[in-house]
């Protein structure tokens, strides 16, 4: 699967959480998160106080193109 912006879907492995940004005004982000969760990924919507986690484990830890 590819995102509309051309970024590639995170790794199929669902064992590591994906950290999504906390943009409250981006409907496409809401849809992306819902789609990933429906595929079995753990997607944590980062709160402003939470540090983004980059590259921990593998590419599935962030939504490509959104960080």
């Amino acid at each position, binding site marked *: 699967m590819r995102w509309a912006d051309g970024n590639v879907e995170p790794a199929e492995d669902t064992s590591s959480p994906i950290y999504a940004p906390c943009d409250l005004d981006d409907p496409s982000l809401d849809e992306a998160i819902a789609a990933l969760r429906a595929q079995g*990924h753990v997607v944590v919507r980062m709160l402003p106080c939470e540090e983004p986690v980059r590259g921990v484990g593998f590419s599935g830890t962030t939504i490509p193109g959104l960080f």
Partner: protein
Amino acid sequence: MNTTCWELPAGIEEVLPEQAWAVEALRRRLLDHYRASGYGLVIPPIVEFVDSLLTGTGEDLDLLTFKLTDRLTGRLMGVRADMTPQMARIDAHSLREEGVSRLCYLGSVLRTMPDGFAGSRSPMQVGAELFGHAGVEADIEIVGLMIETLAIAGITAPVIDLGHVGVFAALAKQAGLNETAERELQDMFQRKALPEIDQYLRDQGVPEPSRRMLSALGRLHGDAAVIAQAREVLVAGGADVAAALDRLERLVAVIARRYPKVRLQVDLTELHGYAYHTGVVFAAYVEGVGHEIARGGRYDEVGKVFGRARPATGFPLISAN
């Protein structure tokens, strides 16, 4: 032969195969969703010492809690009537995580009295708590998760009541009400006893503009437009009232966009749990059921009695088996 030996106590149910599988299937779907949302599952004990079970948010649970004496220690224990106080204890003592903690739970609770007419005394309770973040983003996440929980359970178009206890708290403080008067007035607002409120404010000698604003508060409920009305009517309420309305407005806007099927109602006198709630509060209703099916809110001081006060928001959802 004892002809009553197979009877179960009133409000205590067993779940037979067809329904039990349905309950189990729902349980799995809910927990899968919480996991996918980044929530850690905890399984609190069925019994605890009442010292911890009935503190903080548990203070209202005393009469609902079955109690027994621990034969090992002689201390009084209680069977959990609500798992929310246990979550606060777990966050404060068992986990003690730095930063944000997202926790979910699902299990049976036991109550001395049924919740409502012919209600269960041994319902299932499911819920989620988010500790460690004071911003509106956490309120939005928790309200959203509650709506998603209801959707998974087949309730796709609930009515969600949203309020903020900070509005009433700020107005009561501004009016100079003592603790007793504040509590009595809160009870009247909960009962929507508007004429009684007007009379009470006069009897208490509450000065203008506090009297006018508190009197108007009882009429500030309806759709999202209520927030704009509140800004006009409560303009003399000060910075705390304005901040509470700002937060409510943001919450309503994001939830309305993300969950268009949900009907949102704003109620500034939604004061359930006023003793421990500190911010946004919410409740879910569904057609045909005369009481809320879920409620929750922000209770930033919930961990204080366990030695660790920090921001918290969450919801429990009770379901009859």
